[in-house]
């Protein structure tokens, strides 16, 4: 096994350097900016392919740079980090294409795309973090790089939303910092290890329970666990590509990924179950799932409805982790990917409705399916996936979650899943029905694209591509190379048998 240090750094640089260059570009340099954006996204994916081939052949990719006394900044490629890096890199490409189309002609694009690239850099760094310190560094960096995107519109509403966003996420960051330093003071290491590093050190379990709670609350803010979720619906004031990125890849996923790391690679899931901390987490996740769905029912604004839906859906990941069984782990981790693709589709579609027809409310969408069939088709499929209908990818996630609950004797999980599916159907199906079957009542709908494209190609292709992926992963879930296949490999390493 050989160690390669340059590749993780190159993967970071593939979005960091274009981002920094983009900041310096004048607004009118559209061609150069687009080249940098797309070039960086493509290079990142190519480098990732290279890294996956390397990992497959037993190459270890790791960078170590001393950061604070006794602790290193570590970037490391393991199976779990590759899962998240892949998700980020692929969805970044899709979102970049979409954002270029969406923001055409609007002001401050250099600033936007600069921070956009930095935000992805932070996400990818967070995915590759090899210890809790590095994770913390990128977790905070993500907060800081997304803030300018949230307040991008430069309005008073945006400023207030940004303030709420920061209040929550920085508080989460401080909790994570406290937990991290505390853990370091107790254990003297922060290195992520399969099956955790805190067991067997003779530390008082009561103290460890508190550390666990502090850490989980720290990342739980970004994962939008109730009652730490209130920032998410407010952050909807940001432009659509930002919402898509925040909900599918960057911020909420960073929180969910943090929970995964803390449970599996800091505490070890079996030791966490022994400490008795997984059951409360599972209950909290279950409550969040139901609460988010119920709130989503009552939102007329489409983006807000999707936001509450995210609150609910992201907690499936937490639930899968917290059930503490191998099969549920598969369900939770695979949902990390599946939810990303489905939710990003929904946000792209919501953006298209807003951009092409000026529609923001669910009640205005009557008959939109006739004018915007492609967008509405993508929306419909993604919504079916969210509900958990076969053959969409969302079904696979729920199937494994349910089975996993039964496997460890937590039958109540099935009830939560069933209840949540009904609620999902209750807030998604009316949108689908009215979009396809009702007569158009809104003036604005008739003005959309007779004879031409319903939306520019750059706005249409990303949702179609992402929803196609979600469909393929549902249909061919058991084929080699799918997220499910990869996640099964990860799960086998996190349990002791």
């Amino acid at each position, binding site marked *: 096994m050989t160690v390669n240090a340059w590749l993780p750094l190159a993967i970071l640089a593939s979005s960091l350097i274009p981002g920094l260059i983009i900041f310096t570009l004048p607004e009118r340099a559209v061609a150069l900016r687009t080249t940098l954006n797309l070039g960086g996204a493509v290079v990142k994916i190519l480098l990732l392919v290279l890294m996956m081939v390397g990992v497959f052949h037993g190459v270890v990719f790791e960078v170590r740079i001393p*950061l604070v*006394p006794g602790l290193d900044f570590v970037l490391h490629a393991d199976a779990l980090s590759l899962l998240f890096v892949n998700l980020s890199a692929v969805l970044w490409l899709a979102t970049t294409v979409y954002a270029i189309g969406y923001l055409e002609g609007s002001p401050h694009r250099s*600033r936007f795309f600069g921070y956009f690239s930095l935000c992805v850099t932070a996400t990818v760094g967070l995915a590759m973090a090899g210890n809790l310190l590095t994770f913390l*560094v990128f977790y*905070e960096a993500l907060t800081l790089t997304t*803030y300018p995107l949230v307040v991008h519109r*430069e*309005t008073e509403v945006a400023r207030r939303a940004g303030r709420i966003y920061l209040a929550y996420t920085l508080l989460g*960051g401080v909790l994570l910092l406290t937990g991290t330093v505390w853990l370091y003071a107790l254990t003297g290491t922060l290195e992520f290890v399969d099956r955790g590093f805190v067991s067997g050190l003779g530390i008082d379990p009561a103290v460890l329970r508190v550390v666990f709670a502090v850490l989980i609350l720290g990342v739980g803010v970004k994962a939008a666990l109730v009652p730490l979720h209130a920032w998410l619906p407010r952050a909807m004031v940001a432009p659509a590509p930002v919402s898509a990125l925040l909900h599918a890849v960057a911020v909420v996923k960073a929180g969910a990924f943090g929970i995964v790391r803390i449970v599996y690679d800091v505490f070890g899931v079996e030791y966490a179950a022994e400490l008795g901390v997984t059951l409360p987490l599972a209950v909290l996740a279950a409550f969040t799932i139901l609460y988010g769905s119920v709130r989503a029912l009552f939102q007329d604004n489409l983006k807000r409805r999707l936001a509450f839906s995210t609150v609910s859906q992201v907690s499936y990941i937490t639930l899968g982790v917290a059930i503490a069984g191998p099969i549920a782990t598969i369900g939770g981790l695979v949902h990390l990917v599946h939810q990303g693709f489905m939710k990003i589709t929904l946000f792209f579609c919501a953006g298209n409705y807003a951009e092409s027809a000026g529609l923001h409310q669910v009640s205005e969408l009557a008959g939109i399916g006739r004018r915007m069939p492609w967008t509405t088709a993508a929306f419909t499929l993604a919504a079916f996936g969210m509900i958990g209908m076969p053959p969409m990818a969302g079904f696979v996630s729920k199937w494994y979650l349910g089975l996993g609950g039964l496997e460890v004797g937590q039958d109540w999980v099935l009830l939560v899943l069933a209840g949540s599916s009904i609620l999902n159907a209750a807030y998604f199906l009316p949108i689908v029905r009215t979009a396809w079957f009702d007569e158009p009542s809104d003036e604005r709908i008739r003005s959309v694209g007779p004879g031409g494209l319903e939306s520019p190609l750059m706005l249409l292709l990303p949702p179609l591509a992402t929803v196609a992926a979600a469909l393929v992963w549902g249909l061919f879930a058991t084929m080699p190379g799918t997220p499910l296949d990869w996640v099964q490999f990860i799960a086998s390493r996190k349990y002791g048998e």
Partner: protein
Amino acid sequence: MQTFIVDTPWTIWVVAVPLIGALLAFLWPRRAVATGFAFGLATAAVSLALLWQVAASGPRIYAMGGWGAPIGVDLHTDGLSAIMLTMAAVVGTAVSVYARPYLAATPDKARGFWPLWLFLWAALNALFQTNDIFNLYVTLELLGLSAVALVALAGSGPALLGAMRYLLVSLCGSMAFLVGIALLYRAYGTLDLTLLAARADGGLQLGIPLGAMVAGMLLKTGLFPFHVWLPPAHGSARAPVSALLSALVVKASFYVLLRLWFTFQPADEGLALLLGGLGAVAVFWGSFQALRQRRLKLLVAYSTAAQLGYLFLAFPLAASDPALAWGGSIYLAVSHACAKGAMFLAAGSIMTEQGHDDIDGLDRVVDRMPLTTAAFALAGISLAGLPPTGGFVGKWMLLQAALEQGLWHWALVIVGGGLLTAAYVFRVLGYAFTESSHAREEHAVPRTMEWAALALALAAVSLGFIAPWALSLLEGVLP
């Protein structure tokens, strides 16, 4: 080349170069700007050479006039001195680059600024290397007087008032220090710190002078409740002067305090607790005041009062692992110098550009001056202790020191203060991104000024990456 750098006594040059520059700039006022600027850059270069020398071959002792202690006066340059000198060099370079275009519109102020600033720099560099307690007093006094004169340079009513108050405080602090020196000399018959460390035996004959000197330094550093003079003085001076005061001058008296502490190593836990407690109150009080300010420069000035409090948290935390707590405190001091310097420079640019510095009237300043806003943001991130910055490293170390000993109340101060810092930094940034109907002027700001602030902020950020190397310089210095 290598031997030239290793053999030259840079110790003396880092004091001589700015001193000569100050004299020349004073004697030829017409060429003051060019002379001052050139000698400023030269001072920075000489300081870096000294840093290299110390890093490569360890602490240096220079016996002035070849006499040697206890008869003569020695200059000691150890790792801590080298770090402080480098801090002064980095901040000094940025301020010098900034001050030239900033003062170009007012030539008479420029002629006053350069000799005073170089004189201040010389005093500072001498102070950081002195191993003689009376010399400490002399350099402190020179530093204080040139700082007061620089504040008064602004010429406005509030600035003169601030300068007067600052003068009084500075003199009181020096007097207390001088009293301490006299008592120490009477008791131990020497002024050399190394000899004092060997001879000091504790008891009241050490306790009383030490108390007087510590109190004097607290006054000059502006630790709560002695901070009242600080915001008016720092807030009303011209931007480069504010940057120098907040970044460097208050650090000088803190440095003296550290030297005293390392020399005498008081075993008194009560005093350590008192200093830490005052620091904690300063963190919260200063931050709340900063949150309440309507003017940007005053916000930044109150932030200094708060951040200085952090430096004192090391005193009660240093018991079990001194290197960790002191290292964290010193690292915070250096990071704060870069970050706060950058913040004051950025605030100065904003004030120049729009003619006022009301926070709620920043009116999308991010679109007009992206570099300046970036400088303010990066500096703020470092102040708040968010990674990856020098401030993060410093706070991490203090937090680790607190949690390893299970001292939760200090840990809460550290993280709570960080949150408050983030709150006032992002309050400014929020308005910087928002449209406002507040009236404003529009003046062009030279790019050099914007870049100088940004470079200093980037220095604060890059401190987050060199901590293990920088802290290794402190080995052997800390108790």
